[in-house]
């Protein structure tokens, strides 16, 4: 039984934790061991495809529930992402973290977190799910504070959010168990529709809010940007790329695994305003508000983490659209997002590795110094902005299409507005890092070592290949949809069936590349060009001398910011402050009960006696 890939993968990740504890002080060994283990896990993961549908029951019985795992198509889809992204992160870290301080526990927590995520994804009962969910969130917490010092405070914020969300899930699971008497997904799903309506609504609400926190849905997203941005950049990519999406996994499981569309639509307010629609509205807000917040970030990592929140909104819109195309788009977007955001962050990490900063106000003109990083970032932002021929376009197209066919014009418009904001802000990203003038202090820097380039190349290939040929991934998604009893998306190798809409990425790509070629030819045929140095500037009719650095990267979009500033109300930040001071005030008032005066304490005892006897006397 333990030879099954599932068991082996779980065992390997536990073994990774143990090995890393043993090798705590030997960093180079830790690196090699971690790389080998994760490589083995990816290999196993590929084998996993053959075992879809199988279940694994561990002989560990907790509260009458044997811990059980199952390989569903959805699980396969997620584990594929988890293992591949972890392997890439480890490869990238081999070089980028070598010799850095505070990295002793890096791989340890990485393994713990991976174990948690794999377990959550494989879990076939709510108990296992919750147990590993908790493990996963604590793993996230430890990863977040890897850099120590400044990362502690945002990590603490995350813990408060995460524990609150766990507790909501906990209550939801307890209610489900109290009603159905079982933890097993299958039995719960069977019994779910027979629950009393009020209880079902409560459970769905509790669990939706719980998962929404983990997937950073507006307005519960405030923990994310700071905490992700203040850790190592390679971890930012890992956390941003896959960790946040575990919340989406939970939502998929809840919506399709337990509730189902028919039930979800039963909770109707007025006409079309049902539970799905309300979640979708929050999804739309999740797209718009964080995306426009990202616009004004002056730190590359923070900018991308804000987009991480925003892109989650697309997934939610897709998944809750109740349309085969939309659901496929939502699920596909998870994969796409993971590839390009990791690519972007790896590129930023490459720049940071050489320059030591990710501050957008201080960088610029690195295109010739770090061309690979530039290419990586270029591919990534094309994906992020949803422009063909990269994969981001495909999934976004699915979602737009679904929203329009299902008759949600406002949601579709907000998704498009979000894309607009994305394009604006990614332009800032690539411009401020790679275009414009090179800062003199970065004159001597070189491209990053090969081990750091490798993941960037791999991801570039992935972003492009899945953009042109989305078929293989879509086939997986179709399987997922069928496994939940939904209509599978009509896919082809390069797009969708013409019956469902017209999308052939091969054609689009050909046109796109043809256009580029054409432009290049025109360019070649055109007037002879003069080569200009990066420092040769022209400003308001003046030719600036090369010795005068003219940094127009500084405070990019300031004018734009003036337009948006009055709209920023910082409601969430203020709410957070209010809640935390409410807790403090509550603590302060409550502890004043203990006045320190003995006579008062004696009176409490007397009062308790009188109240107890009164209470008992009146009630019996």
């Amino acid at each position, binding site marked *: 039984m333990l030879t099954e890939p599932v068991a082996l993968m779980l065992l390997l990740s536990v073994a990774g934790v143990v090995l890393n504890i043993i090798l705590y002080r030997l960093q180079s060994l830790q690196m090699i061991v971690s790389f080998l283990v994760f490589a083995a896990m990816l290999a196993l993961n590929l084998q996993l495809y053959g075992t879809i549908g199988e279940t694994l029951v561990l002989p560990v019985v*907790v*509260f009458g529930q044997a811990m059980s795992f199952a390989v569903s198509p959805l699980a396969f889809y997620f584990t594929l992402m988890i293992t591949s992204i972890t392997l890439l992160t480890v490869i990238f870290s081999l070089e980028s973290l070598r010799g850095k301080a*505070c990295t002793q526990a890096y791989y340890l927590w990485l393994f713990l977190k991976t174990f948690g995520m794999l377990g959550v994804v494989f879990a076939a009962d709510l108990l296992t799910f*919750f*147990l*590993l969910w*908790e*493990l996963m969130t*604590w793993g996230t917490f430890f990863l977040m*504070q890897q850099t*120590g*010092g400044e990362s*502690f405070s945002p*990590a*603490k914020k995350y*813990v*408060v959010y995460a*524990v*609150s969300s766990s*507790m*909501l899930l*906990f*209550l939801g699971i*307890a*209610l489900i*168990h*109290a009603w159905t008497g079982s933890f097993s997904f299958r039995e719960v799903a069977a019994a779910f529709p027979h629950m009393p309506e009020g209880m079902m609504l409560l459970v769905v609400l509790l669990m939706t809010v719980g998962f929404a926190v983990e997937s950073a849905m507006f307005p519960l997203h405030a923990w994310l940007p700071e905490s992700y941005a203040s850790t190592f950049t390679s971890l930012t990519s890992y956390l941003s790329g896959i960790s946040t999406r575990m919340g989406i996994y939970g939502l998929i499981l809840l919506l399709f695994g337990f509730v189902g569309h028919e039930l979800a639509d039963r909770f109707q307010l007025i006409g079309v305003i049902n539970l799905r629609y309300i979640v979708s509205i929050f999804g739309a807000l999740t797209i718009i508000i964080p995306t426009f917040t990202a616009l004004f970030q002056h730190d590359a990592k923070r900018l991308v983490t804000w987009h991480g929140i925003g892109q989650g909104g697309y997934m939610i819109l897709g998944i809750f659209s109740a349309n085969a195309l939309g659901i496929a788009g939502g699920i596909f977007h998870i994969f796409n997002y993971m590839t390009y955001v990791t690519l972007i962050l790896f590129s930023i990490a490459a720049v940071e590795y050489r320059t030591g900063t990710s501050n957008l106000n201080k960088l610029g003109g690195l295109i010739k110094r770090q061309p690979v990083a530039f290419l990586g970032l270029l591919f990534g932002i094309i994906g992020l902005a949803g422009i063909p021929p990269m994969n981001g376009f495909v999934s976004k197209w699915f979602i737009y299409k679904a929203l329009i066919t299902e008759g949600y014009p406002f949601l579709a418009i907000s998704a498009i507005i979000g894309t607009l904001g994305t394009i604006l802000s990614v332009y800032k990203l690539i411009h401020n890092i790679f275009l414009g003038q090179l800062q003199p202090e970065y004159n001597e820097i070189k491209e990053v070592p090969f081990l750091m380039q490798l993941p960037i190349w791999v991801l570039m290939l992935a972003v492009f290949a899945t953009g042109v040929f989305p078929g293989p991934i879509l086939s997986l998604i179709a399987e997922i949809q069928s496994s939940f009893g939904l209509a599978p998306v009509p896919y082809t190798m390069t797009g969708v069936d013409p019956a469902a809409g017209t999308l052939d990425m091969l054609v689009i790509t050909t046109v796109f590349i043809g256009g580029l070629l054409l432009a290049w030819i025109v360019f070649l045929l055109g007037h002879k060009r003069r080569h200009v140095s990066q420092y040769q500037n022209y400003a308001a009719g003046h030719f600036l001398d090369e010795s005068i650095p003219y940094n127009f990267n500084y405070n990019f979009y300031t004018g734009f910011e003036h337009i948006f500033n009055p709209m920023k109300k910082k409601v969430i930040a203020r709410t957070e402050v209010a809640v935390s001071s409410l*807790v*403090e005030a*509550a*603590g*302060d008032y*409550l*502890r004043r*009960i*203990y006045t*320190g005066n*003995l006579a*008062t*304490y*004696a009176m*409490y*005892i007397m*009062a*308790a*006696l009188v109240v*107890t*006897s009164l*209470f*008992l*006397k009146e*009630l*019996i």
Partner: protein
Amino acid sequence: MVNPIMLILIPLLTVFLINLVNIKWPKFSAGLSFLAIALTTGMAFTLLPEVMQAPIEVVIAGTKAPIGINLLIGPLGLMLSLIILVTSLLVSMYSFSYISDERKGMYSGLFLLLIVGSLGMVMTGDIFNLFVFFEILCISSYILVAYQRNEHSLEASIKYLLLGSIGSLFLLISIAILYRGLGTLNIADIAARVGELPPSTRIAAAAFFTIGIGVEAAIFPLNSWLPDAHSSAPSSISAMLSGFVIEVALVVLIKIVFSLFAFAALFWLLAVVGVVSLLIGEFAAYRQENIKRMLAYSSIGQVGLILFALSLGTEAATRAAFLQIINHAAAKSALFLVSGYMIIRTGSYQIADYRGIARRMPVSGFVFFLAVLSLVGVPPLFGFFSKFSIVMAAVSSGSTGATVLTGLVLLGTVVEAAYFIRVLQHFYQREPAKAVTAARSERGAGAESSIEAPIAAMLPVLAFALFLTGGVLLLGSITGLADAAVQDLFARLVSVLA
């Protein structure tokens, strides 16, 4: 076969022997008390198989109950005895190095008497005998709280003493009422005939009894002595007081309520009061700057949780409460013990002065970390399973009230996680506080060296930590024992008046 009365007599005899030894050789007293506890613990374990078959009744003075006094050792009593003995065995090991002043001979004696009181309370089958052992327990804790003889410990002790005495006064009144009504003192006998009492009398006895023991069991609002006493006592004693003394009082209270005063209204009152104590404890702990006071308030919270689970009155909830008692005994003892040496090393009680301490006390820091996670309920530590089962049991009891209370319990958990994480992050900060840099160990090494507590003190702490992590593997047998204890308790449940 071991006569279970030996569990009480051996420590008691050792107390008198220690008093004798103290005259000439006070340094041997700690070892003697450790040996006595070890022997008693071993004996308690040998009783286990027999007790699981059937409860043992020990007749005293050759007269059968209800005429004389009897001890009744069922699974419940033995489980609590084991918790008491194992915890105190480890704490007494810690005390070898921790208590080093010239009065350590007296400390060992009082320490043993604290154990005698607790053991007597859980084993006796006679209500007045319960009162006597309760007094032994209380008085030895009053004295031990004052052990350091400084301003704070004396103040805490006198407050504890006066409030505790009001509690024991009420307990005595309750016993007088019961004796007047039924003419017997044996708990089983009272339980069999409690229906003969007029309802009003039974209510009065219930109220006096609940409040009387409630003072020691730290039920809100009778727990006002607790933060003072637990924070002013030596850390080893705080570990004992928090680790099992409150819980013993609580379980005895519930046991008596189950067998004599099973009013549904009383159960509800206790459940609500438990949740209120939990919230007050956690919120107040959130605002503490003094580490021991914070831990003490956290104990109020944890006791509230245990009380809530116990007073739900279902078998699953009671079993969960027992698991939580075990978890709290291990985790809170470890926390207090660890903080004891942190206080010695830095000379400060302020959490702010512990910044970066985990880098100089790595083992202590790690144990603190584990214990905190177990208290908050993070898998795969023991605390997760106990908290999980409490919530499961509370929600599946099916009433809306219980579900609402569970929601509040979970709110308390969030607050608990918030303040504990704050402390943990303080411990692991990179820039150490002045007090930490200035700290020196007994060997007086330099600023970069480890200031870890001595090995004799770290071993028991590590044992607690090991239990919290590895205890999950024992979960089956622990649950088995807890199950038997639940059966024992529910066998006493007489009747639930509407």
